[in-house]
Every structure is written in C-alpha cells, then in structure tokens.
C-alpha cells in the first residue's frame, strides 16, 4: 500500500454474531433441501475505500446504514466477516457517554479509567489531567460522582478525554449532537486543531451540515453498501436527494387535511385546505428558488370573527423552522370573516434552498382556533445551474450576492 495511506479497506463484508451460526443454518438448509440463503442480514456489503494520513473522512447515511459498524471494525472491536482491513496507526474511538464509566466514581477517577482503557499510562493521564479538566468545564462537578451528572455532562467528560489523547486515527461517532452550543463550538475548534496536527479523523454523523463543515471527503453508506465516495458537496447533495425522496414519501401519506385527527383549537375557524401555487398561479408540488410562490389557505368560520391572526411556519426536512409568515391581527381588525373564505400569502422571491419543505398553519385570535401541522408539503428546485453553483449548494437558505472588484 502507498506510503501515506493509513487506512485501507478492501471488499469488506460484515455480519454480526458468531460465524458458526450461519454456517450451521446453511448446512441444515442443505440437508433439508431448502434453498440456501446468503445467510444475511449483512451490516456491510463489499465496502472499499482508502484514507490518507491526515485526511478527514466523513461517513453519512441513514440509521442502520452501517456507519457505526464500519467504525467498530476499524477500531478492531469486531472482526470483518470477509475482506481485508489494514490500519497503520494508533486508533482511538471517541467513547460516547457512559462507556467505561462507573457511576459511583468521580469525574476525575473516570478520566483515569477512560485513559487506561484508551491505553495511556498513569503518568500520561496525570500529565493530561489539567488540560482535560479545563476542557470539560465541569468545575467542582469534576470531583463529584458521575451518577449526579446529566447526559450532556457525561458527554463532555468522554469528549474531553478523547480530544486530548495523542492518536494517529480518531474515530468520532455521532457525538457532537450532545452538549450546548458553546461546547459544540469548542468541540469544532478542537477538531480543527487536531486536523491541523495531521491526525486522521473518521467522522460519522447523520447530520449532513456537520459533515459538510468538517470533512473534505465523504463516504455515503446505504443498506451497508457504499453508494458514493467523493467530495463533501456532491456526496451531501446526493444524500439530501435520497433523504428528501424518502421524506417526501413519508409525508405524502399524511397530506390529506380533512383526515388529520386530534386537531387542536376551538374550531370556530377551521383550515379547510392549504395549497402551494407556483409563479404561474397554478397549484403545484414544486416551486423554484428566486421565483414567486403563493400559499393559499381556505378557511371556514362558523361565526363572525375579526382581528384574525394567521401564521405559516416553513419547516425543512431537518425539522427546523426555516422561516415564518405572520398575518398580524392589527392588519385584519376591520376584516370580518364568516363562512368560507380564502387568503393568500404571496412570497415574491423564494429564498429556500432546494429540498422538501412542509408548512404548519396556525389560526388564532385570543384563543387558538386551529393548528394544522404539516398542512402541506412542497419541493423547491433551482434549475439554474450557475446560480446553484454560486451558492456551492450548501447552507439552509439561498441568497443572491454581487461580487465587486475594488481595485
């Protein structure tokens, strides 16, 4: 293998459990004349890749795609079923909260324990202790039994140890999800520093934004197979596409407004229908970035109401409210509603990134009349390749900018 290749994986297959079990099953099947199966389920199928020294490889994929299995095999925790895995260096898996941690021991004692588990000598651990203590920011809690800790505090402890060992290869599995923003920011910074020191990092997450931010190269796993390996932007875009397709399928099943059970609100005003219209004014499933969009809401008021307040939340597939459109009650003071009526929210320029979005609609005055989560869903596309490239196909909203040379 080339000199700077630090991890080499060739035709890796992995099935969990003792290899004896499928062998016995296969033998029994043959004896009974039943068709032999491949003995599945396979956690990984024929995965191959290489990582060079100092590189950071992101690994994305949906739940159960085989991300964590891959890390386990690289750490040498579980043997590969078929194929060849070659690692050149000290591997440190980032131990997630509560692993190896004894609840009755204090934070400091647990750091010693984790250090020993990770292969540090006692002198090395004591030398690192102040650094770790400072990194964890646990204050006096550092000398209190871990059983009193919250999940976030435990994660800080684990992260503090992992970030301060001298590894050649660091495996990070889904750990930035915990911790408050300040600590997360600190972790990013620390990971950046470690990257600069030339440590090879494998970073697993199902948050594509995190991966995009930290990893130049990304491996996309689906069903144990490696779907794509390339630069972060293309891989993440592909991942978004696949996730959106699955997400769209999931929400389409719930789209009929009239069948929404358990609606909140008094019901004096009901939302009958919510539609998304494209720039031509046609009801559509797809709208385009930088073009017009209208959201039409059909209402039915059972009694006369004025000063109605309507709010539309636009929610991305990551379940984040991207923006909100609010019709303030001060604007509808003189508008009396009764019976069926429609209102349109006109958005002159859609600034959403391509993807799948859903709408939550709320109608209230001093009391809540109606609240309809996932009242409608729509896709956003951006066909202008140049415009898309100008945004690097990244981020959570689209915004135009002008570049001006000043010299």
């Amino acid at each position: 293998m080339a000199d700077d290749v630090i991890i080499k994986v060739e035709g890796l297959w992995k099935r969990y459990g003792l290899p004896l079990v499928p062998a016995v099953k296969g033998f029994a099947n043959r004896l009974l004349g039943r068709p032999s199966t491949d003995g599945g389920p396979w956690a990984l199928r024929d995965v191959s890749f290489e990582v060079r020294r100092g590189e950071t490889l992101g690994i994305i994929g949906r739940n159960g795609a085989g991300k964590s299995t891959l890390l386990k095999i690289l750490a040498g925790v579980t043997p590969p079923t078929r194929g060849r895995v070659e690692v050149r260096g000290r591997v440190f898996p980032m131990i997630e909260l509560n692993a190896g941690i004894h609840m009755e021991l204090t934070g400091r004692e647990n750091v010693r324990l984790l250090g020993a588990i990770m292969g540090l000598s006692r002198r090395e651990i004591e030398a690192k202790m102040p650094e770790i203590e400072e990194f964890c920011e646990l204050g006096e809690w550092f000398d209190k039994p871990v059983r009193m800790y919250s999940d976030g505090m435990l994660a800080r402890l684990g992260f503090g140890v992992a970030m301060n060992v001298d590894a050649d290869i660091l495996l990070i599995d889904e750990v930035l999800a915990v911790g408050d923003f300040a600590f997360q920011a600190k972790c990013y910074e620390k990971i950046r520093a470690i990257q600069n020191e030339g440590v090879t990092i494998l970073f697993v997450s199902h948050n594509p934004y995190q991966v995009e931010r930290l990893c130049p190269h990304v491996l996309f796993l689906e069903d144990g197979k490696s779907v794509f390996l390339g630069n972060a932007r293309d891989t993440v875009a592909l991942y978004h596409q696949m996730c959106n397709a699955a997400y769209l399928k999931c929400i389409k099943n719930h789209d009929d407004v009239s069948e929404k059970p358990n609606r909140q609100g008094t019901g004096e005003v009901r939302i009958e229908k919510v539609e998304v219209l494209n720039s031509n004014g046609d009801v559509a499933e797809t709208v385009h970035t930088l073009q017009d969009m209208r959201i039409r809401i059909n209402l039915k008021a059972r009694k006369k109401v004025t000063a109605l307040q309507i709010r539309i939340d636009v929610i991305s597939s990551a379940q984040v409210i991207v923006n909100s459109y609010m019709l303030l009650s001060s604007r509808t003071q003189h508008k009396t509603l009764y019976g069926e009526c429609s209102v349109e929210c006109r958005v002159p320029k859609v600034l959403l990134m391509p993807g799948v979005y859903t709408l939550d609609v709320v109608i209230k005055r001093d009391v809540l009349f109606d609240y309809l989560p996932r009242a409608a869903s729509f896709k956003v596309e951006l066909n202008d390749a140049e415009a898309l490239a100008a945004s690097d196909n990244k981020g959570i909203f689209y915004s135009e900018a002008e570049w001006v040379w000043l010299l």
Partner: protein
Amino acid sequence: MTKGRYINLGNKKAGFDRFFNLLWALVTREIKGQYRRSFLGPAWALLQPLFYMVIFTFVRGVLKISSEGIPYVLFTYSALVPWTFFSNAVARCGPSVIQNAGVVKKMALPRIVFPTAAVVTSLFDLLMSGIILIGMMFWFHIRVGWSLIWLPVLVLLMALLALGVGMVIAAFGTYKRDIVFATPFLMQFWLLATPIMYPLGSVPERWQKLYMLNPMVGLIEGFRGALIKGAVPDLNLIFFSLLGIAMVWTIVWPVFRSMSQYFADVL
C-alpha cells in the same frame, strides 16, 4: 469464501505494560465502586465466610463431623477463606464482560482483562477475610512455621483455576446468560464436594478416586494444612490439582479466544 482479516500495524504500545495498566484501573474501579455505596463497605468481604462458618458449626452439632482435633470454628473457617475467594472469583468472572459492554463495544482490548480483573478484585476480599483468620489463630494459639510460604503458591493456583473456570462462564455467558444464572448452584455443589466442612480423611475409600478429580481438593486441604498444622501440602494432591488446572486451561483458552472476538457483536 475467505475469512475477513483485520491488520493493525500501528499498535506498538500493546503489551504487558498496557495490560497491567488497564487491569489496575479496572480493579481499583471495582473495589472503589463496590464499597462506596454501602454502609459496611469492605466488611462485606468478611461476612460471607463468617456466615458459612456459623451454618457449618450448627450442622456439625447435628452430624458429628470430625475436625482432626482442631477447634472446628478454625478448622472450617481456614478453608472457607480461600474457598470464598475462589467462588467469588468465579462468580465475578461470569458477568464481567457483560458489565463492561460499553468498553467492549468501543475499544479493542485484550478481552481476558475483564475476567482477570474479576479474579484480582476477589484477592482484595481474600485479604480482608484473612484479617479475621489471623485474629482467630492468635485466639487459639496456633503456631505457624515455614509452611506459610506455601500459601501464596496455593492462592495463585486457585486464582488460575478460578480464571480458567470463569473464562468458560464469561465466554458462553456473554452469548446466553443461562450459565451465569447457574453459577451460584454450581458453586454450592462444588463447595460440598470440597473438604471444607469436613476433613478429607472422612471421605469414604471407594469415592476417593472420583473425589480427587476436583482440583480444589488438594488446594484447600493444602491451604488448611499449611496454615494450621504447619504441614507441607500433600504433593500428590497438588499434582492432581495442577493437572486439573492444566486441563481446564488447554480447553478453555482456545474457546475463550475464538469466542471473545465476537463479544462486541452480541452485547
């Protein structure tokens, strides 16, 4: 189909240093963790053999068991102390891997460190219950001699046997818990098949051969003899024990090695 291969060219630090470091960390964790949330703390280590001693003394009142002229309390307690060490060590081995699931699933460690830590932790209990034993010996004015140097040897052999048996329980128990649940029964049975509440001499002649298959016989009898009678252990018996330990290890070691690779898969 070729078997998968995992090659790590970078783990130069692996070795004895690392192993003992880890062992030490696990043992201190066990001992500290075990006692930090109890009133009696390490005193629990004393209570178990004392409790058996009281029961055996009562049983003896009913069954008229010989104690070869030694005060019965001392006779039985001097065997119960090493036995309790052995049986606790075996019992601790069983769930040792399961209890460390979090670590086993994350780090590539020599798996044998977990049962080894279980046995070493039990050594600590042995030291605690030894204190009462020393007190008793003063009370009964027992004179000791050079034969005491046999004690560490015998304890080491018991530790090896306990680790051997414990590894089987840990290996299979990690996959299916049954054998872990069965351990207490097994140890009760073993207790009665070892000369602890009665002397070796009172075992009927025709059962002696079968009885000697138990490797603990020579070790316990030797321990008691060396401590109280100032006698060198019967080397024939010790030889049988050694043979037993060697047999256990020849079978258990390869089984544990191959099964332990897949521990992380089933935890």
